[in-house]
């Protein structure tokens, strides 16, 4: 063991600086109790692809907030308590309750109905303001029992992001970039997303001149898709649109390749799957040319009000730290933290649940993911957000196999477009 030698001056220097640090922390805490934020996301389990980058984003935000934030003339320290749902909705509800009991002022929940819905419900039950993003807002609002045309049953929970309307806009304007017979084979499962797109998106696409070939809802976890594939082949579909969970998509598309369906397809448009590079790499050459939709992209021209980073800085930071390719979740998670912190800054008292709730309800700020505006949402408690047409293409250079390029910006014209959609079989 090496002996640590230290003279008296060094020792008193360390003592003084640590006392100073402690008193600085103490001053922050004494001035006004620290603001506590609960942050719930899926870091392990089947949804781990979404939560993979959250640790990095939280690190950036914590560093940026180490000096506290100023609210109504006072400086408050900010403490973020992050929790992993292990992709289990029951655990998400449990964690939300524990966080609420730890006295958090604001709850943030991110990624998929399996996380957001139970956390939102727990906050609604306990009267704690909750902000969330990354799932179609219809599945959040109507999925939790709100009825169209009636006043909102939610007093404490708010959500921002894309909806089926944005998805339609993006699909119809992206697909018209390529000459096809406009026959669309759809794979919509029996879940909130699947039912929402079947009820709302499919009729809109038909009105826009597309023929929808729907083999009917399948149950999540199905392993044999030969009936659907045979139907799509017989009908000669050139566009396929699917909303599967990743393992279902892998099964479906591999069978489609074996049974020769992939040869006739010009556009393979997928949602829910195909968001992250790791999933795509697992599909091998079948992934090249797959069309996707992005709720964030590093080309977004916005800056985070919390960390001051641009999209490219955020993405490059992740790639440098982890050695892995950037993902669209980086910006989505940061945009949630941006919106949450901005709401706190706008509140008259960050420790008053009512004041914070009112600040969220009237929030209108720019985040790294674009404008979040609760004053003009499609329904109460919801602010709509963009989802952009994108495609996985073979990377021209760089360390990674695939590149994720934007091909359509119908839902946010501020974002620059770098490519045109190319047919799947090219």
């Amino acid at each position, binding site marked *: 063991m090496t002996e640590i030698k230290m003279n008296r001056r060094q020792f008193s220097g360390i003592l003084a600086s640590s006392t100073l640090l402690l008193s600085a922390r103490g001053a922050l805490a004494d001035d006004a109790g620290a603001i506590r934020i609960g942050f719930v996301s899926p870091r*392990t389990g089947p949804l781990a692809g979404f939560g993979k980058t959250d640790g990095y984003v939280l690190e950036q935000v914590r560093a940026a907030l180490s000096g506290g934030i100023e609210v109504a003339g006072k400086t408050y320290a900010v403490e973020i308590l992050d929790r*992993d749902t*292990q992709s*289990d*909705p*029951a*655990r998400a*509800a*449990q964690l939300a*309750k*524990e966080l*609420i*009991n730890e006295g958090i002022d604001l709850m943030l929940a991110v990624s998929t*109905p*399996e996380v957001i*819905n*139970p956390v939102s*419900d*727990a906050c*609604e*039950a*306990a*009267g704690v303001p909750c902000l969330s993003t990354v799932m179609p807002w219809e*599945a959040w609002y109507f*999925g*939790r*029992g*709100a009825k169209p045309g009636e006043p909102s*049953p*939610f*007093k404490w929970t708010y959500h921002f992001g894309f909806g089926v309307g944005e998805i339609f806009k993006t699909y119809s304007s992206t697909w018209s970039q390529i000459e096809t017979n406009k026959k669309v084979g759809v794979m919509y*499962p*029996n*879940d*909130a*997303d*699947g*039912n929402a797109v079947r009820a709302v998106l499919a009729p809109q696409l038909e009105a826009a001149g597309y023929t929808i070939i729907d083999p009917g*809802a399948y*149950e*999540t976890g199905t392993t044999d898709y030969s009936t659907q594939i045979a139907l799509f082949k017989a009908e000669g579909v050139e566009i396929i649109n699917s909303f599967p969970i990743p393992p279902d998509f892998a099964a479906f598309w591999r069978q489609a390749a074996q049974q020769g369906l992939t040869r006739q397809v010009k556009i393979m448009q997928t949602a829910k799957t195909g968001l992250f590079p790791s999933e795509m790499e697992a599909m091998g050459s079948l992934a090249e040319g797959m069309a996707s939709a992005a709720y964030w992209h590093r080309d977004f021209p916005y800056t985070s009000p919390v960390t001051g980073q641009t999209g490219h800085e955020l993405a490059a930071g992740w790639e440098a730290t982890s050695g892995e390719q950037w993902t669209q979740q980086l910006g989505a998670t940061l945009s949630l933290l941006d919106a949450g912190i901005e709401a706190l800054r706008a509140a008259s008292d960050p420790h008053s649940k009512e004041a914070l709730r009112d600040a969220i309800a009237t929030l209108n700020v720019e985040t790294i993911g674009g404008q979040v505006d609760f004053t003009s949402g499609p329904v109460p408690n919801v602010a709509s957000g963009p989802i952009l047409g994108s495609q996985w293409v073979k990377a021209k250079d760089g360390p990674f196999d695939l590149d994720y390029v934007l091909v359509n910006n119908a839902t946010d014209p501020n974002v620059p477009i770098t490519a045109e959609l190319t047919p799947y079989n090219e």
Partner: protein
Amino acid sequence: MTIHRWTWQSKLTFALAAVVLLLLALVPGFASGGVIERLTVLFIYVILAAMWNALAGYGGLVSIGNQLFFGLGAYMTIRLADAGINPFAAMALGAGIVAGLSWLLSLFMLHLRAGEFAIGMWVLASIAHLCVNLDPLIQGETGTSLISLNAYAIDARRVLIFWAALIGMVGLLALLFAVLRTPSGLAMQAIRDNEEAADSVGVNPMRTKRLFFVLAGFGTAVAGALWLAQVSAFQPKTYFSVQWTAYMIFMVLVGGLGRFEGAILGALIFFAAETWFADTGVWYLVGLGAVAMLFSLFLPKGLWGWVETRTHISLMPLGYRVQFDTQSEQGR
């Protein structure tokens, strides 16, 4: 020689239980919201353990599909509440409907033996899961929420659910205790030990088993409805998950299979383990499995069984005790 049911320990236990229950009923008056919510969860665990124990411990009906009742209890509550019924009334009514359904199921399920019954129950749970998914209100795996509870003020709602869970737990335990002390309870234990022999001495196995099956169905459905009330979110995959039965088996195996006190003790242990170790993720589940395995290998009667054989203490008198004047012996 004297024959008696009550011992001084069991009398003391009942007196203590009454005091504890009274204190529990008054908890909302002084405890924080977090304590109230955790206790609600504990009550639900006790119900789950007691009901699985009623089937397996007393009736020998080992089921790995009790999530069937749990999920249906929650689903019925959602359905009835959506039709405009008060959520608490919907919980009670929903559990009643599940009791009716379990009577129907018992008509054919109880003809299955041992392993067939266990797997059959799991199959039924999976079928029920798929059927519930087809309901447009539920929206497949995404599920929905019991939002009619939002009409209650936040504190009132927490306390109401707490009392509902307390009443549910006490009511079901009392019902089970009462049933076990009737001739049917005795008959049920005779069937567990040897069905043919019980039949030959005049026990009607089908009627007796049905009584316990319906009771377990009702009780587990109450637990499902209570769980829904305290989390609001209904996602079919969560409620119809086999993990619920795994938890029930853990609680009963560790506490003491076929022992009334065992199920309660098991629920307390499981609750404590969850409180302290759930954060460790996968290792928590590995630990639960390992503990359950060790218990079934080395302490097959569970903790309470071990305490009972060592000390001859019976806190919940279900059988009769024969005491000789010269030396102290006991029999159950």
